[in-house]
């Protein structure tokens, strides 16, 4: 049962990365791919109706994690106290920028929110990457089941780690680059004219650095977290996940060359899915590895009561089917490129 929930939470996080990933990415490139007010409105319109729905996946995944693995939620969230609070502030800034920018047209109002939107999106991508890096690397959990990590110590991978060290920073940079690519492909697909062309070009250029850094980070991960190697040697079928990532990367550049915007974006989704599932597969059965492996939290030590997990499965499945329905409806309603006409409100008058 706990393994089922491990997979389900993993899937929810992966979906969050795919969905909020493109709007974070769109935010991170906002200032560069769109120059005029009209162009910037295009970028915002491409994520406007969906971004808060995408962010709900974070809340829903967090809630699910909370009830399925309460001990993990307690240790992890209190241990990552400072970076999580910073993430919250960035999410607030970002939400405010998307929602408030277009309320007023002014030479001081728009650029301020454009800048905040871009900066917060960019930093969020780095922080989420670094968080993932921390989970892979392991944290200084002790016998009490708690830890507290400062933002940084000496940037080395010793016993007293900080949230940021050279490994987690590299993962953060990779996350930023990957989401820039992902967001670029989204913007290319959803907009038209100069914005679309610039976004596609940017995604194509960044592809090389994503590919290179993926290789570097993957190689390092095997040394940083021994469990990963163990899992991939024990269960050979697990190679399907990294293969998916590689195929996705190949697909991105292939489809970009063919100018198939939709397929290029989907290939990028495949890459991100492959990366996320590889990580999840690599750390199982740990949910939060400790620097001293004795204290690692595993699916068995962190799980909630059996009855709760069973009941949860029933409503979770129902809820997810409903959610999938809403998302299909919303994305269909806003399918296609955003128009640049200045007709009216989407309302009647």
């Amino acid at each position, binding site marked *: 049962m706990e393994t089922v929930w491990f997979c389900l939470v993993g899937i929810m996080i992966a979906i969050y990365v795919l969905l909020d990933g493109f709007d974070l990415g769109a935010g991170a490139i906002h200032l560069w791919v769109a120059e005029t007010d009209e162009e910037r409105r*295009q970028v915002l*319109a491409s994520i*406007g*109706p969906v971004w*808060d*729905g995408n*962010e*709900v996946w974070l*809340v829903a*995944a967090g*809630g*699910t994690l*909370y*009830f399925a693995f*309460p001990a993990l*939620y*307690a*240790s*992890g*969230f*209190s*241990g990552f*106290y400072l970076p*999580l*609070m910073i993430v*919250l502030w960035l999410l*607030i800034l970002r939400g*405010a920028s998307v*929602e*408030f920018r*277009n*309320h*007023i*047209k002014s030479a001081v109002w728009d650029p301020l929110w454009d800048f905040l939107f871009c900066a917060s999106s960019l930093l969020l991508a780095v922080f989420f990457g670094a968080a993932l890096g921390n989970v892979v690397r392991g944290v200084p959990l002790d016998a009490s089941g*708690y830890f*507290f990590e400062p933002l940084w110590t000496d940037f080395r991978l010793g016993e007293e780690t900080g949230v940021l060290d050279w490994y987690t920073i590299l993962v953060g940079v990779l996350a930023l680059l990957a989401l820039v690519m992902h967001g670029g492909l989204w913007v290319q697909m959803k907009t038209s004219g100069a914005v679309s062309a610039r976004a596609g070009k940017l995604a194509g250029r960044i592809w090389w650095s994503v590919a290179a850094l993926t290789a570097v980070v993957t190689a390092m991960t095997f040394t940083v977290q021994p469990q990963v190697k163990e899992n991939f040697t024990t269960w050979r079928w697990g190679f399907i996940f990294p293969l998916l990532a590689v195929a996705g990367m190949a697909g991105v550049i292939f489809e970009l060359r063919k100018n198939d915007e939709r397929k290029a974006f989907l290939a990028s989704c495949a890459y991100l899915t492959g990366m996320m599932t590889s990580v999840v597969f690599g750390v199982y059965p740990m949910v939060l590895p400790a620097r001293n492996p004795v204290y690692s939290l595993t699916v068995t030590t962190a799980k*909630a*009561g059996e*009855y*709760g997990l069973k*009941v*949860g499965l029933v*409503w*979770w499945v129902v809820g997810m089917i*409903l*959610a999938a329905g*809403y*998302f299909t409806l*919303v994305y269909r*309603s*806003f399918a296609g490129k955003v*128009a*640049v006409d*200045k007709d*009216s*409100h*989407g*309302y*009647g*008058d």
Partner: protein
Amino acid sequence: MGQALDVHRLHFAFTITFHYIFPQLTMGLALLLVYLKTKALRTGDEHYNRAARFWARIFGINFALGVVTGIPMEFQFGTNWAAFSRAAGGVIGQTLAMEGVFSFFLESSFLGLFLFGEKKLGRMGHWVAAFLVFLGSWLSGYLIVATDAWMQHPTGYRIGANGTILLSNFWAVLLNKWALWQYAHNMLGAVQTGCFVMAAVGAFYLLTKRDEKYGRTFVKAGVLVGTVAAILQLFPTGDMQGKLVAYNQQPTLAAMEGLFESQAGAPLVILGQPDVEKRKLDNPLEVPNMLSFLTYRQWRANVKGLAELPEDQWPDQIPLLYYSYHVMVGLGTIFIAVMVLAALLYWRGKLYESRWMLWTLMLCVPLPYIANTAGWMTAELGRQPWLIYGLMRTAHGISPRVAAGNAWFTLIGFMGMYAVLAMLWLFLIYREIELGPEPGQHPLAEDAAVLAD
């Protein structure tokens, strides 16, 4: 430890108080939006659609702030209250996760469609979108109240091997009778916020002689729905809520009422200042026997005072709890008076010309916010010294490794950020009211068009 505990409590209290400014209006307005859309559908009058669009824009701003200030609430269970989460996450995580899965997806998806897709959805489709936004926000309210109700009155649990609290009966948690009454009472409070805000904007338009047709629609909707809500707030929901406290949280009732000595025929205190050190109420203004009657339906029934209850069960902030409760009840009584009078004037056909009543409605707008906040303070301060009533003390729930210094750092950060958000909120809402409901005034109009087809 004491110091860290205080900062963690202040941290949660500050962020939740600020957060709840937004959902109470969102939930109240969601109902009123359904009312306006229903009117539009039934009369076919475009006026109601325009009115709904105007409120949808205010709703949108408010909703966005509710979302961004809401995410920190979920996070804080883990960041600041780790020991509590570790012990009880298997139970309260259920309702919190259900909120994400069932209501937030619903709410956010259909709000997008509601705000951006009126043309595409058609008349009926747009009504359905409005209704689903309402359903999502009210469902979300229920799941949060159910979470709090479990902390007030835990049910459906058992204690596991290592002291963790395990879920043993899902329906007992979900349909906790405390949750049902608390929810009804809470939602009526939210509806009153929505009604007072709508009526106040309408009164503002009528008093300034602009958009008067809209002004009348808003005042009428606010007053009619508000009258019903104000009465139901007191009876039966407030009454039942009070009884639940009286039967299950005796020290809380005594502290709320400022009752230090047990008494047969206990009075209801209208005014007075509790002096906890001397254990008495200064300058009391009381209605004799009333508390006994309200609680037990007998004029001479005995009500237990604080002195008779063990001191380690007393709420730790008695004066604040006492004032929160009295502010809530006092304002609730004023709301009934204002709303019933306004409804009478409406019935006599004099409401729109009655300047003093329009002034009153306009100036009342901050009061429901204060009443709702005071109500929640009563519930949460009243629960002290327990985090989960009778099961876990507040002092045992905090994150053991998060030092007071770190908690201060983030509390100050939130204060700064929320001060800016509050100013932006007031500014943007005022601007919407100033731009008014007539179409063709709004910069967003152009923008939403991008998504029209």
